[in-house]
Protein backbone atom coordinates (compact mmCIF):
# COMPACT_ATOMS: atom_id res chain seq x y z
CA UNK A 1 0.00 0.00 0.00
CA UNK A 2 2.95 2.30 0.31
CA UNK A 3 3.05 2.51 -3.45
CA UNK A 4 -0.50 3.87 -3.46
CA UNK A 5 0.61 6.93 -1.53
CA UNK A 6 3.03 7.85 -4.23
CA UNK A 7 1.12 6.89 -7.36
CA UNK A 8 -2.60 6.61 -6.61
CA UNK A 9 -3.75 5.83 -10.16
CA UNK A 10 -1.56 2.75 -10.32
CA UNK A 11 -2.85 1.43 -7.01
CA UNK A 12 -6.47 1.76 -8.06
CA UNK A 13 -5.88 -0.70 -10.86
CA UNK A 14 -5.07 -4.37 -10.85
CA UNK A 15 -1.53 -5.57 -10.18
CA UNK A 16 0.77 -5.07 -13.15
CA UNK A 17 1.14 -8.76 -13.90
CA UNK A 18 -2.60 -9.09 -14.48
CA UNK A 19 -2.77 -6.24 -17.02
CA UNK A 20 -4.13 -7.15 -20.41
CA UNK A 21 -2.09 -6.01 -23.39
CA UNK A 22 -3.46 -5.88 -26.90
CA UNK A 23 -1.79 -5.33 -30.23
CA UNK A 24 -3.64 -2.19 -31.19
CA UNK A 25 -1.90 -0.55 -34.15
CA UNK A 26 -0.52 -2.38 -37.19
CA UNK A 27 2.98 -1.45 -38.36
CA UNK A 28 1.62 0.37 -41.43
CA UNK A 29 -0.67 2.50 -39.27
CA UNK A 30 2.20 3.40 -36.95
CA UNK A 31 4.68 4.27 -39.67
CA UNK A 32 2.18 6.34 -41.69
CA UNK A 33 1.02 8.06 -38.48
CA UNK A 34 4.49 9.35 -37.66
CA UNK A 35 5.29 10.33 -41.25
CA UNK A 36 1.98 12.20 -41.21
CA UNK A 37 2.92 13.87 -37.93
CA UNK A 38 6.21 15.07 -39.43
CA UNK A 39 4.52 16.26 -42.64
CA UNK A 40 1.77 18.19 -40.85
CA UNK A 41 4.29 19.86 -38.52
CA UNK A 42 6.57 20.98 -41.38
CA UNK A 43 3.61 21.95 -43.60
CA UNK A 44 2.09 24.05 -40.82
CA UNK A 45 5.26 25.95 -39.95
CA UNK A 46 6.42 26.40 -43.56
CA UNK A 47 2.85 27.34 -44.47
CA UNK A 48 2.88 30.15 -41.90
CA UNK A 49 6.19 31.32 -43.42
CA UNK A 50 4.48 31.49 -46.84
CA UNK A 51 1.40 33.17 -45.33
CA UNK A 52 3.65 35.83 -43.76
CA UNK A 53 4.78 36.96 -47.24
CA UNK A 54 1.28 38.39 -47.65
CA UNK A 55 -0.64 38.05 -44.37
CA UNK A 56 -4.06 38.87 -45.80
CA UNK A 57 -6.81 36.61 -47.04
CA UNK A 58 -9.44 37.45 -49.63
CA UNK A 59 -12.54 35.92 -51.15
CA UNK A 60 -12.88 35.53 -54.92
CA UNK A 61 -10.70 35.23 -58.01
CA UNK A 62 -8.33 38.09 -57.13
CA UNK A 63 -7.11 39.89 -54.01
CA UNK A 64 -4.18 42.18 -53.28
CA UNK A 65 -3.33 45.22 -51.18
CA UNK A 66 -6.02 47.49 -52.62
CA UNK A 67 -8.78 44.92 -52.19
CA UNK A 68 -10.80 44.26 -49.06
CA UNK A 69 -9.54 41.25 -47.11
CA UNK A 70 -11.74 38.89 -45.06
CA UNK A 71 -8.89 38.29 -42.61
CA UNK A 72 -5.78 40.45 -42.31
CA UNK A 73 -2.81 40.57 -39.98
CA UNK A 74 -1.53 44.10 -40.47
CA UNK A 75 1.39 45.97 -39.01
CA UNK A 76 0.89 49.62 -38.09
CA UNK A 77 3.31 52.07 -36.52
CA UNK A 78 2.47 53.14 -32.97
CA UNK A 79 2.94 56.67 -31.62
CA UNK A 80 6.27 55.55 -30.13
CA UNK A 81 7.42 54.45 -33.59
CA UNK A 82 7.25 50.77 -32.62
CA UNK A 83 5.30 48.29 -34.79
CA UNK A 84 1.78 47.46 -33.64
CA UNK A 85 -0.03 44.30 -34.76
CA UNK A 86 -3.66 44.68 -35.77
CA UNK A 87 -5.59 41.53 -36.72
CA UNK A 88 -8.83 42.07 -38.59
CA UNK A 89 -11.53 39.47 -39.08
CA UNK A 90 -14.37 40.80 -41.18
CA UNK A 91 -15.31 44.11 -39.59
CA UNK A 92 -13.64 43.39 -36.23
CA UNK A 93 -10.15 44.60 -35.31
CA UNK A 94 -7.96 43.35 -32.47
CA UNK A 95 -4.65 44.58 -31.15
CA UNK A 96 -2.49 41.46 -31.30
CA UNK A 97 0.91 43.06 -30.71
CA UNK A 98 3.38 40.52 -29.35
CA UNK A 99 1.87 37.64 -31.28
CA UNK A 100 0.29 38.58 -34.63
CA UNK A 101 1.41 41.51 -36.77
CA UNK A 102 4.25 42.54 -34.47
CA UNK A 103 6.40 40.27 -32.35
CA UNK A 104 9.78 40.21 -30.66
CA UNK A 105 12.79 38.79 -32.42
CA UNK A 106 16.30 38.94 -30.91
CA UNK A 107 15.20 41.52 -28.38
CA UNK A 108 13.52 43.97 -30.71
CA UNK A 109 9.96 44.22 -31.93
CA UNK A 110 9.39 43.75 -35.63
CA UNK A 111 6.43 43.69 -37.97
CA UNK A 112 5.47 40.24 -39.26
CA UNK A 113 2.32 38.12 -39.53
CA UNK A 114 2.97 35.07 -37.37
CA UNK A 115 5.94 35.21 -34.97
CA UNK A 116 9.27 33.61 -35.84
CA UNK A 117 8.82 30.73 -33.41
CA UNK A 118 5.89 29.52 -35.51
CA UNK A 119 7.54 29.73 -38.93
CA UNK A 120 9.99 27.52 -40.77
CA UNK A 121 12.61 28.86 -41.04
CA UNK A 122 12.19 31.31 -38.16
CA UNK A 123 13.60 34.22 -40.16
CA UNK A 124 11.82 35.61 -43.21
CA UNK A 125 12.74 33.26 -46.05
CA UNK A 126 9.89 32.61 -48.45
CA UNK A 127 12.04 30.59 -50.88
CA UNK A 128 13.09 28.05 -48.22
CA UNK A 129 9.55 27.94 -46.80
CA UNK A 130 8.20 27.08 -50.26
CA UNK A 131 10.89 24.42 -50.85
CA UNK A 132 9.94 22.63 -47.63
CA UNK A 133 6.21 23.09 -48.10
CA UNK A 134 6.20 21.43 -51.51
CA UNK A 135 8.54 18.57 -50.54
CA UNK A 136 6.41 17.68 -47.53
CA UNK A 137 3.18 18.17 -49.50
CA UNK A 138 4.38 15.41 -51.84
CA UNK A 139 5.36 13.24 -48.87
CA UNK A 140 1.96 13.82 -47.23
CA UNK A 141 0.13 12.86 -50.43
CA UNK A 142 2.21 9.71 -51.04
CA UNK A 143 1.94 8.72 -47.36
CA UNK A 144 -1.82 9.28 -47.45
CA UNK A 145 -2.23 7.10 -50.53
CA UNK A 146 -0.12 4.32 -48.97
CA UNK A 147 -2.20 4.56 -45.79
CA UNK A 148 -5.49 4.30 -47.71
CA UNK A 149 -4.37 1.33 -49.81
CA UNK A 150 -2.94 -0.60 -46.86
CA UNK A 151 -5.86 0.26 -44.56
CA UNK A 152 -8.43 -0.82 -47.11
CA UNK A 153 -6.56 -4.05 -47.87
CA UNK A 154 -6.10 -4.91 -44.20
CA UNK A 155 -9.73 -3.88 -43.53
CA UNK A 156 -8.49 -1.47 -40.83
CA UNK A 157 -10.69 1.29 -42.28
CA UNK A 158 -13.76 -0.95 -42.58
CA UNK A 159 -13.27 -2.66 -39.21
CA UNK A 160 -12.03 0.11 -36.91
CA UNK A 161 -13.11 3.40 -38.45
CA UNK A 162 -16.38 2.81 -40.27
CA UNK A 163 -19.39 3.99 -38.31
CA UNK A 164 -21.93 1.29 -37.53
CA UNK A 165 -25.59 2.09 -38.04
CA UNK A 166 -26.36 1.99 -34.30
CA UNK A 167 -23.56 4.47 -33.63
CA UNK A 168 -25.35 7.10 -35.71
CA UNK A 169 -28.52 6.98 -33.62
CA UNK A 170 -29.17 10.33 -31.97
CA UNK A 171 -29.39 8.76 -28.52
CA UNK A 172 -26.02 7.09 -28.90
CA UNK A 173 -24.41 10.25 -30.28
CA UNK A 174 -25.81 12.28 -27.39
CA UNK A 175 -24.48 9.83 -24.82
CA UNK A 176 -21.07 9.81 -26.56
CA UNK A 177 -20.94 13.62 -26.52
CA UNK A 178 -21.94 13.59 -22.84
CA UNK A 179 -19.19 11.04 -22.07
CA UNK A 180 -16.65 13.37 -23.70
CA UNK A 181 -17.91 16.37 -21.75
CA UNK A 182 -17.58 14.38 -18.52
CA UNK A 183 -14.03 13.42 -19.59
CA UNK A 184 -15.03 9.76 -19.25
CA UNK A 185 -12.02 7.46 -19.52
CA UNK A 186 -12.82 4.21 -21.32
CA UNK A 187 -11.74 0.98 -19.62
CA UNK A 188 -11.80 -2.71 -20.41
CA UNK A 189 -13.59 -3.77 -23.58
CA UNK A 190 -14.71 -0.22 -24.29
CA UNK A 191 -11.11 1.00 -24.52
CA UNK A 192 -10.27 -1.55 -27.22
CA UNK A 193 -12.38 0.24 -29.82
CA UNK A 194 -12.54 3.78 -31.13
CA UNK A 195 -15.60 5.60 -29.80
CA UNK A 196 -18.04 7.29 -32.17
CA UNK A 197 -16.81 10.89 -31.87
CA UNK A 198 -13.26 9.61 -32.23
CA UNK A 199 -14.18 7.80 -35.46
CA UNK A 200 -15.97 10.90 -36.78
CA UNK A 201 -12.92 13.03 -35.96
CA UNK A 202 -10.48 10.66 -37.70
CA UNK A 203 -12.74 10.18 -40.70
CA UNK A 204 -13.20 13.96 -41.03
CA UNK A 205 -9.43 14.48 -41.09
CA UNK A 206 -8.71 11.60 -43.47
CA UNK A 207 -11.55 12.13 -45.94
CA UNK A 208 -12.43 15.80 -45.35
CA UNK A 209 -9.73 18.12 -44.09
CA UNK A 210 -6.63 16.61 -45.72
CA UNK A 211 -8.23 16.22 -49.18
CA UNK A 212 -9.48 19.82 -48.85
CA UNK A 213 -5.94 20.97 -48.02
CA UNK A 214 -4.54 19.16 -51.05
CA UNK A 215 -7.20 20.50 -53.43
CA UNK A 216 -7.09 24.12 -52.21
CA UNK A 217 -3.29 23.93 -52.28
CA UNK A 218 -3.39 22.75 -55.90
CA UNK A 219 -5.86 25.55 -56.78
CA UNK A 220 -3.20 28.09 -55.79
CA UNK A 221 -0.92 26.75 -58.52
CA UNK A 222 -1.35 28.66 -61.81
CA UNK A 223 -0.14 25.57 -63.68
CA UNK A 224 -2.72 23.26 -62.07
CA UNK A 225 -5.42 25.89 -62.70
CA UNK A 226 -4.66 25.73 -66.43
CA UNK A 227 -4.89 21.93 -66.35
CA UNK A 228 -8.02 21.78 -64.16
CA UNK A 229 -9.92 25.10 -64.37
CA UNK A 230 -12.85 23.37 -62.66
CA UNK A 231 -10.96 23.83 -59.36
CA UNK A 232 -11.42 27.61 -59.70
CA UNK A 233 -15.18 27.15 -60.10
CA UNK A 234 -15.37 24.69 -57.24
CA UNK A 235 -13.59 26.90 -54.69
CA UNK A 236 -14.70 30.25 -56.13
CA UNK A 237 -11.26 31.43 -57.20
CA UNK A 238 -7.59 31.27 -56.29
CA UNK A 239 -7.93 33.72 -53.41
CA UNK A 240 -10.95 31.87 -51.97
CA UNK A 241 -8.91 28.66 -52.19
CA UNK A 242 -6.06 30.35 -50.31
CA UNK A 243 -8.48 31.47 -47.57
CA UNK A 244 -10.01 27.99 -47.30
CA UNK A 245 -6.50 26.48 -47.22
CA UNK A 246 -5.65 28.68 -44.22
CA UNK A 247 -8.93 28.05 -42.36
CA UNK A 248 -8.75 24.28 -42.87
CA UNK A 249 -5.13 24.35 -41.67
CA UNK A 250 -6.31 26.06 -38.48
CA UNK A 251 -9.02 23.39 -38.14
CA UNK A 252 -6.34 20.69 -38.38
CA UNK A 253 -4.37 22.54 -35.67
CA UNK A 254 -7.52 22.46 -33.52
CA UNK A 255 -7.86 18.72 -34.21
CA UNK A 256 -4.23 18.17 -33.14
CA UNK A 257 -4.82 20.02 -29.87
CA UNK A 258 -7.93 17.95 -29.09
CA UNK A 259 -6.07 14.78 -30.13
CA UNK A 260 -3.20 15.62 -27.74
CA UNK A 261 -5.64 16.55 -24.97
CA UNK A 262 -7.42 13.18 -25.26
CA UNK A 263 -4.10 11.33 -25.29
CA UNK A 264 -2.98 13.05 -22.11
CA UNK A 265 -6.40 12.48 -20.58
CA UNK A 266 -6.45 8.71 -21.07
CA UNK A 267 -2.71 8.17 -20.48
CA UNK A 268 -0.08 9.69 -22.71
CA UNK A 269 2.61 7.07 -22.17
CA UNK A 270 0.37 4.12 -22.99
CA UNK A 271 -1.12 5.87 -26.04
CA UNK A 272 2.21 7.03 -27.45
CA UNK A 273 3.82 3.66 -26.81
CA UNK A 274 0.99 1.91 -28.62
CA UNK A 275 1.61 4.12 -31.64
CA UNK A 276 5.33 3.22 -31.50
CA UNK A 277 5.35 -0.50 -30.57
CA UNK A 278 1.75 -1.34 -31.39
CA UNK A 279 1.07 -2.70 -27.87
CA UNK A 280 -1.62 -1.10 -25.76
CA UNK A 281 -2.23 -1.78 -22.10
CA UNK A 282 -5.94 -2.12 -21.40
CA UNK A 283 -7.15 -0.31 -18.29
CA UNK A 284 -9.10 -2.87 -16.22
CA UNK A 285 -12.74 -2.26 -15.38
CA UNK A 286 -13.36 -0.73 -11.99
CA UNK A 287 -15.04 -3.32 -9.76
CA UNK A 288 -15.11 -1.51 -6.43
Amino acid at each position, binding site marked *: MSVADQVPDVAAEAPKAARERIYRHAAATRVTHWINFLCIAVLLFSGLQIFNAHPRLYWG*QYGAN*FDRPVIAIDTHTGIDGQPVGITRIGGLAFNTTGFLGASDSNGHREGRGFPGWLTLPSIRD*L*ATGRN*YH*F*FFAWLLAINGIVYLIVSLASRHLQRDLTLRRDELRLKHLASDIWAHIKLHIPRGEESKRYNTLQKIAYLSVIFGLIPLMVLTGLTMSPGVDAAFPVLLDFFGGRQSARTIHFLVAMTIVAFVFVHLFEIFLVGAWNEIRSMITGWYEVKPEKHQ
Partner: protein
Amino acid sequence: MTRVLVDRRRALSLGATGLGGLLLAGCDSVVRAPAARAFIRRAEGLSFGIQRALLSGQRMAREFSPEQMSPVFRSNGSVNPQNLDYVALRNGNFAGYRLIVDGLVGSPLNLSLAQLMALPRRAQITRHDCVEGWSAIGKWTGVPLHEVLNRANILTSARFIVFECFDLKPASGGMTPYYESIDLLDAFHPQTILAYAMNDTPLEVAHGAPLRLRVERQLGYKQAKYIKRIRAVSSLDGTFGGKGGYWEDTTGYEWYAGI
Protein backbone atom coordinates in the same frame (compact mmCIF):
# COMPACT_ATOMS: atom_id res chain seq x y z
CA MET B 1 10.15 -0.08 -8.91
CA THR B 2 7.34 2.40 -9.53
CA ARG B 3 9.55 5.26 -8.45
CA VAL B 4 12.11 4.29 -11.00
CA LEU B 5 9.41 4.36 -13.65
CA VAL B 6 8.30 7.85 -12.62
CA ASP B 7 11.90 9.05 -12.63
CA ARG B 8 12.44 7.59 -16.05
CA ARG B 9 9.34 9.38 -17.29
CA ARG B 10 10.54 12.64 -15.77
CA ALA B 11 13.97 12.15 -17.28
CA LEU B 12 12.41 11.44 -20.66
CA SER B 13 10.24 14.53 -20.55
CA LEU B 14 13.17 16.67 -19.42
CA GLY B 15 15.23 15.21 -22.22
CA ALA B 16 12.46 15.90 -24.71
CA THR B 17 12.18 19.51 -23.53
CA GLY B 18 15.90 20.01 -23.83
CA LEU B 19 15.96 18.39 -27.25
CA GLY B 20 13.07 20.62 -28.32
CA GLY B 21 15.02 23.70 -27.30
CA LEU B 22 18.08 22.52 -29.15
CA LEU B 23 15.98 21.71 -32.19
CA LEU B 24 14.44 25.19 -32.22
CA ALA B 25 17.82 26.86 -31.77
CA GLY B 26 19.46 24.74 -34.43
CA CYS B 27 16.41 24.66 -36.67
CA ASP B 28 17.31 27.50 -39.01
CA SER B 29 20.90 26.37 -39.45
CA VAL B 30 19.76 22.84 -40.26
CA VAL B 31 16.74 23.79 -42.36
CA ARG B 32 18.64 26.38 -44.40
CA ALA B 33 21.83 24.35 -44.80
CA PRO B 34 22.68 24.04 -48.51
CA ALA B 35 22.76 20.23 -48.32
CA ALA B 36 19.33 20.07 -46.65
CA ARG B 37 17.80 22.45 -49.16
CA ALA B 38 19.39 20.61 -52.08
CA PHE B 39 17.76 17.40 -50.85
CA ILE B 40 14.38 19.05 -50.25
CA ARG B 41 14.50 20.71 -53.66
CA ARG B 42 14.52 17.33 -55.38
CA ALA B 43 10.73 17.53 -55.13
CA GLU B 44 10.83 20.37 -57.70
CA GLY B 45 11.59 17.93 -60.48
CA LEU B 46 8.53 15.90 -59.51
CA SER B 47 6.27 18.99 -59.50
CA PHE B 48 7.69 20.16 -62.84
CA GLY B 49 7.39 16.73 -64.46
CA ILE B 50 3.82 16.18 -63.31
CA GLN B 51 2.73 19.67 -64.34
CA ARG B 52 4.35 19.35 -67.76
CA ALA B 53 2.48 16.06 -68.21
CA LEU B 54 -0.81 17.65 -67.11
CA LEU B 55 -0.26 20.67 -69.34
CA SER B 56 0.61 18.72 -72.48
CA GLY B 57 -1.44 19.88 -75.43
CA GLN B 58 -0.82 23.50 -74.42
CA ARG B 59 -3.68 23.92 -71.94
CA MET B 60 -4.75 27.55 -71.62
CA ALA B 61 -4.79 29.64 -68.49
CA ARG B 62 -8.28 30.88 -67.65
CA GLU B 63 -9.27 34.15 -69.27
CA PHE B 64 -11.69 36.38 -67.40
CA SER B 65 -14.38 38.85 -68.40
CA PRO B 66 -13.85 42.64 -68.07
CA GLU B 67 -16.15 42.75 -65.00
CA GLN B 68 -13.86 40.33 -63.18
CA MET B 69 -10.80 42.62 -63.39
CA SER B 70 -9.13 44.00 -60.24
CA PRO B 71 -10.17 47.64 -59.66
CA VAL B 72 -6.51 48.43 -58.92
CA PHE B 73 -3.67 46.27 -60.22
CA ARG B 74 -0.87 46.20 -57.71
CA SER B 75 2.71 46.63 -58.94
CA ASN B 76 5.77 45.36 -57.12
CA GLY B 77 9.42 44.46 -57.62
CA SER B 78 11.10 47.21 -59.67
CA VAL B 79 8.52 49.93 -60.21
CA ASN B 80 10.65 52.84 -61.44
CA PRO B 81 14.13 51.97 -62.73
CA GLN B 82 16.63 54.78 -62.27
CA ASN B 83 19.50 53.61 -64.47
CA LEU B 84 20.41 56.27 -67.06
CA ASP B 85 19.79 54.22 -70.21
CA TYR B 86 16.25 53.45 -69.08
CA VAL B 87 15.54 57.00 -67.86
CA ALA B 88 16.68 58.39 -71.24
CA LEU B 89 14.31 56.05 -73.10
CA ARG B 90 11.45 56.86 -70.75
CA ASN B 91 12.01 60.60 -71.18
CA GLY B 92 11.78 60.09 -74.93
CA ASN B 93 8.50 58.22 -74.47
CA PHE B 94 10.31 55.04 -75.62
CA ALA B 95 10.66 56.36 -79.19
CA GLY B 96 14.29 55.24 -79.11
CA TYR B 97 13.47 51.79 -77.72
CA ARG B 98 14.77 48.75 -79.62
CA LEU B 99 14.08 45.16 -78.66
CA ILE B 100 17.10 42.99 -79.45
CA VAL B 101 16.40 39.35 -80.38
CA ASP B 102 19.54 37.27 -80.75
CA GLY B 103 21.40 34.20 -79.53
CA LEU B 104 20.56 30.92 -81.28
CA VAL B 105 18.51 32.51 -84.06
CA GLY B 106 19.06 32.52 -87.81
CA SER B 107 18.17 36.18 -88.24
CA PRO B 108 18.70 38.45 -85.22
CA LEU B 109 16.12 41.22 -84.88
CA ASN B 110 16.18 44.79 -83.69
CA LEU B 111 12.58 45.98 -83.32
CA SER B 112 11.10 49.34 -82.43
CA LEU B 113 7.88 49.59 -80.42
CA ALA B 114 6.02 50.58 -83.62
CA GLN B 115 7.35 47.49 -85.40
CA LEU B 116 6.27 45.27 -82.48
CA MET B 117 2.81 46.81 -82.54
CA ALA B 118 2.54 46.15 -86.27
CA LEU B 119 2.94 42.40 -85.69
CA PRO B 120 -0.09 40.16 -85.00
CA ARG B 121 -1.45 40.92 -81.54
CA ARG B 122 -3.29 39.11 -78.81
CA ALA B 123 -5.33 40.53 -75.92
CA GLN B 124 -6.12 38.48 -72.81
CA ILE B 125 -7.64 39.13 -69.40
CA THR B 126 -5.70 36.90 -67.04
CA ARG B 127 -4.80 36.48 -63.40
CA HIS B 128 -1.38 37.51 -62.16
CA ASP B 129 -0.26 35.43 -59.16
CA CYS B 130 2.54 36.73 -56.98
CA VAL B 131 4.80 34.23 -55.23
CA GLU B 132 3.82 36.10 -52.04
CA GLY B 133 0.24 34.90 -52.41
CA TRP B 134 -1.81 37.79 -53.81
CA SER B 135 -3.51 37.86 -57.20
CA ALA B 136 -4.68 40.61 -59.55
CA ILE B 137 -6.64 40.33 -62.79
CA GLY B 138 -5.79 42.63 -65.70
CA LYS B 139 -5.94 42.87 -69.47
CA TRP B 140 -2.76 42.50 -71.45
CA THR B 141 -2.22 43.27 -75.12
CA GLY B 142 0.91 42.37 -77.01
CA VAL B 143 2.61 40.32 -79.64
CA PRO B 144 2.73 36.56 -79.11
CA LEU B 145 6.31 35.56 -78.43
CA HIS B 146 6.19 32.83 -81.09
CA GLU B 147 5.54 35.48 -83.76
CA VAL B 148 8.81 37.14 -82.83
CA LEU B 149 10.78 33.89 -82.45
CA ASN B 150 9.55 32.59 -85.83
CA ARG B 151 10.56 35.83 -87.53
CA ALA B 152 13.99 35.52 -85.96
CA ASN B 153 14.23 31.95 -87.31
CA ILE B 154 14.99 30.36 -83.96
CA LEU B 155 17.44 27.46 -84.36
CA THR B 156 16.65 23.87 -83.39
CA SER B 157 19.56 23.93 -80.93
CA ALA B 158 17.72 26.51 -78.78
CA ARG B 159 16.18 25.17 -75.55
CA PHE B 160 15.44 28.28 -73.48
CA ILE B 161 14.48 31.89 -74.05
CA VAL B 162 16.24 34.39 -71.76
CA PHE B 163 14.76 37.84 -71.10
CA GLU B 164 17.26 40.51 -70.08
CA CYS B 165 15.80 43.61 -68.49
CA PHE B 166 16.73 47.26 -67.98
CA ASP B 167 16.16 47.31 -64.23
CA LEU B 168 19.14 46.61 -61.99
CA LYS B 169 18.85 44.60 -58.79
CA PRO B 170 21.27 44.03 -55.91
CA ALA B 171 23.32 40.84 -55.99
CA SER B 172 26.43 39.57 -54.22
CA GLY B 173 28.78 41.03 -56.84
CA GLY B 174 27.07 44.45 -57.00
CA MET B 175 24.14 45.40 -59.20
CA THR B 176 22.89 42.96 -61.82
CA PRO B 177 20.16 43.24 -64.45
CA TYR B 178 16.89 41.48 -63.71
CA TYR B 179 16.45 38.51 -66.00
CA GLU B 180 14.21 35.51 -66.41
CA SER B 181 13.98 32.47 -68.65
CA ILE B 182 11.37 30.01 -69.90
CA ASP B 183 11.53 26.81 -71.92
CA LEU B 184 10.27 26.53 -75.49
CA LEU B 185 6.99 24.89 -74.46
CA ASP B 186 6.04 28.08 -72.63
CA ALA B 187 7.73 30.31 -75.21
CA PHE B 188 5.50 28.95 -77.99
CA HIS B 189 2.32 28.86 -75.87
CA PRO B 190 -0.42 30.99 -77.48
CA GLN B 191 -0.89 33.05 -74.29
CA THR B 192 2.80 33.87 -73.93
CA ILE B 193 3.00 37.44 -75.18
CA LEU B 194 5.27 40.46 -75.08
CA ALA B 195 2.80 42.98 -73.70
CA TYR B 196 2.99 46.68 -74.57
CA ALA B 197 -0.48 47.59 -73.26
CA MET B 198 -2.34 46.94 -70.04
CA ASN B 199 -6.05 47.55 -69.46
CA ASP B 200 -6.22 49.13 -72.96
CA THR B 201 -3.62 51.82 -72.23
CA PRO B 202 0.12 51.83 -72.96
CA LEU B 203 2.00 49.88 -70.32
CA GLU B 204 2.85 52.08 -67.32
CA VAL B 205 6.39 52.32 -65.98
CA ALA B 206 5.33 50.59 -62.76
CA HIS B 207 4.12 47.62 -64.80
CA GLY B 208 7.20 47.29 -67.01
CA ALA B 209 7.02 49.85 -69.85
CA PRO B 210 7.64 49.60 -72.68
CA LEU B 211 7.55 45.80 -72.91
CA ARG B 212 6.99 42.97 -70.45
CA LEU B 213 6.54 39.24 -70.65
CA ARG B 214 3.26 37.48 -69.86
CA VAL B 215 3.72 33.75 -69.35
CA GLU B 216 0.33 33.02 -67.91
CA ARG B 217 0.76 29.63 -66.27
CA GLN B 218 3.57 30.74 -63.99
CA LEU B 219 4.03 33.10 -61.04
CA GLY B 220 4.69 36.83 -61.12
CA TYR B 221 8.48 36.77 -60.89
CA LYS B 222 8.62 35.04 -64.30
CA GLN B 223 6.75 38.00 -65.90
CA ALA B 224 9.91 39.98 -66.71
CA LYS B 225 9.35 43.74 -66.97
CA TYR B 226 11.39 46.38 -68.89
CA ILE B 227 12.59 43.80 -71.44
CA LYS B 228 15.75 44.92 -73.24
CA ARG B 229 16.90 41.79 -75.01
CA ILE B 230 15.57 38.32 -75.81
CA ARG B 231 18.15 35.61 -76.28
CA ALA B 232 17.70 32.01 -77.40
CA VAL B 233 20.16 29.69 -75.64
CA SER B 234 20.83 25.97 -75.45
CA SER B 235 21.56 26.00 -71.72
CA LEU B 236 21.10 28.36 -68.79
CA ASP B 237 24.53 27.56 -67.39
CA GLY B 238 26.48 30.49 -68.81
CA THR B 239 23.79 33.11 -68.18
CA PHE B 240 24.29 35.32 -65.09
CA GLY B 241 24.09 33.05 -62.02
CA GLY B 242 23.13 30.04 -64.12
CA LYS B 243 19.83 29.24 -62.39
CA GLY B 244 17.65 30.93 -64.99
CA GLY B 245 16.50 34.07 -63.22
CA TYR B 246 17.41 36.84 -60.80
CA TRP B 247 15.39 35.43 -57.89
CA GLU B 248 16.42 31.88 -58.74
CA ASP B 249 20.08 32.96 -58.50
CA THR B 250 19.82 35.11 -55.39
CA THR B 251 17.17 33.57 -53.10
CA GLY B 252 16.46 30.13 -54.51
CA TYR B 253 12.97 30.58 -55.92
CA GLU B 254 12.10 27.67 -58.20
CA TRP B 255 12.98 28.10 -61.89
CA TYR B 256 9.68 26.42 -62.78
CA ALA B 257 7.11 28.69 -61.17
CA GLY B 258 3.90 26.91 -62.10
CA ILE B 259 3.28 26.14 -58.43
